[in-house]
């Protein structure tokens, strides 16, 4: 039920008809509240946008987790090459790849900590990739060696180590470049873009080096 006060206010207004403000106070208050509301919405949106970190199902989180595991296998293979390769150039590139990729794993794990995410994702590996590459039952991502291939690399001796390593590592890097491309398509987060670009360039360059070594050792 309307109060007497309101009625009076309106009555006055009805009398003065067209010039709108029957009660200027209310009008200004309304305008002020509208302004406040818009400001509030704007501020909230801006804050949420600026402060947002990649979420559990984001491409960035998927990349950090999956590329860590992808890198871990490269480290393993490169360490074998470093320890047992016959060609000194193979040992040298093994050393380079192992140290670089292990350090990059550290970077990516640190992102996950900063984003308040666990190292282990709740979604299937590679689900974040824009082109929908899937993994097999053993979780092998593009370019990854099978368990059997890893076992043969461990067992290999002499020139066979070089041959196997170069073959597996080239495939591994091609897969890695593909994943880096995937996150570059999906993300504009500076630290992720920067890392993915350097991975892509570094691994493309190394693919060329590995191919040159392949020519040398057959």
């Amino acid at each position, binding site marked *: 039920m309307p109060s007497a006060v309101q*009625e*009076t206010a309106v009555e006055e207004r009805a009398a003065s008809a067209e010039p*709108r403000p029957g009660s200027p106070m209310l009008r200004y208050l*309304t305008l002020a*509240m509208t302004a406040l509301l818009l400001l509030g919405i704007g501020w909230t949106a801006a804050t949420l946008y600026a402060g947002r970190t990649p979420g559990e199902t984001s491409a960035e989180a998927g990349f950090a987790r999956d590329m860590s595991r992808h890198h871990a296998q490269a480290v393993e293979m490169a360490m074998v090459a*470093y320890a047992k390769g016959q060609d000194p150039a193979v040992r040298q590139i093994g050393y380079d790849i192992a140290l670089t990729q292990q350090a990059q794993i550290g970077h990516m794990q640190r992102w996950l900590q900063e984003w308040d995410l666990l190292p*282990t994702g709740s979604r299937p590996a590679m689900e974040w990739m824009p082109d929908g590459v899937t993994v097999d039952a*053993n979780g092998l991502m593009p370019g990854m060696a099978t368990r059997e291939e890893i076992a043969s690399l461990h067992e290999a001796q002499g020139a066979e180590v070089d041959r196997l390593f170069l073959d597996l590592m080239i495939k591994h890097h091609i897969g890695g470049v593909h994943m880096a491309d995937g996150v570059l398509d999906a993300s504009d987060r500076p630290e992720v873009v920067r890392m993915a670009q350097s991975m892509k360039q570094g691994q493309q360059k190394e693919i060329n080096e590995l191919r040159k070594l392949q020519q040398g050792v057959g």
Partner: protein
Amino acid sequence: MSISTPGGPQRRPTVVSTGKKPAAGRPAADTKAASTKPATPKRAGGGGKGPRKPITPVKVSQGRSWGPIALFVAVGVLATSIIGYGAWAAIRGAQTWEEKAAQIEGIVNFRETDPEAISNSEHRSGKQEYAQSPPVGGPHNNTWQRCLGDVYDAPIAAEHALHSMEHGAIWLTYRPDLPAADVEKLADVVRGNDFMMMSPYEGLDKPVSIQAWGYQLKVDNADDPRIKEFATTLAQNATVEPGATCSAGNYTTGTGTEPRDLQPSMGG
């Protein structure tokens, strides 16, 4: 309310629309109210020509105050949400993996309850004695068990498994007589995930036990969601050697509970 209010036909719409639109800035409601009114038949309650004034005020005043009320409510809701979200984010966002782990019902944190039991982490060869079964810390073999989502179908040496746990692995163990369908459910948690491994374990006092360095959870059922919660929360996080690997280096993939003293084959 304003829609159902009886009123005179013509004059009211004019007043309402001119007064309300600029004031409240909510044209939708106004239009509705205004357009509905002409259709409303004039009621007896409205009285004759004289009482016109009293009727008009009733409607206009009601319609008018809705705008500000809605605004106040909107501002109030917005302010509450901002504060609420901030508080939620502050509490939630600050949650460490330790806090998440502490929330898993039934988890035992030996780092707090029995730090002595896990204080010794030296490398020893041969079989070791442990206070817990399966062990959650203590001296262990120089070689670690590969923990790259490995699903071992036979018991493994705790001396190797402990070294993996020191590197951040979780070790999911189950009674050897667990039905194959249940074993498969457990394997789904582990397979494909770095810093996880599983194997059967003789003499468990519960069907399933999952452990990390200093942490353990025993459950009766392979369906228990706490298994996955433990695995994803503690894998890699529970490491006492951050950065150490599961997949590269001097690991073993062999089974059998007798520890094997492998020569550190460089790179292998």
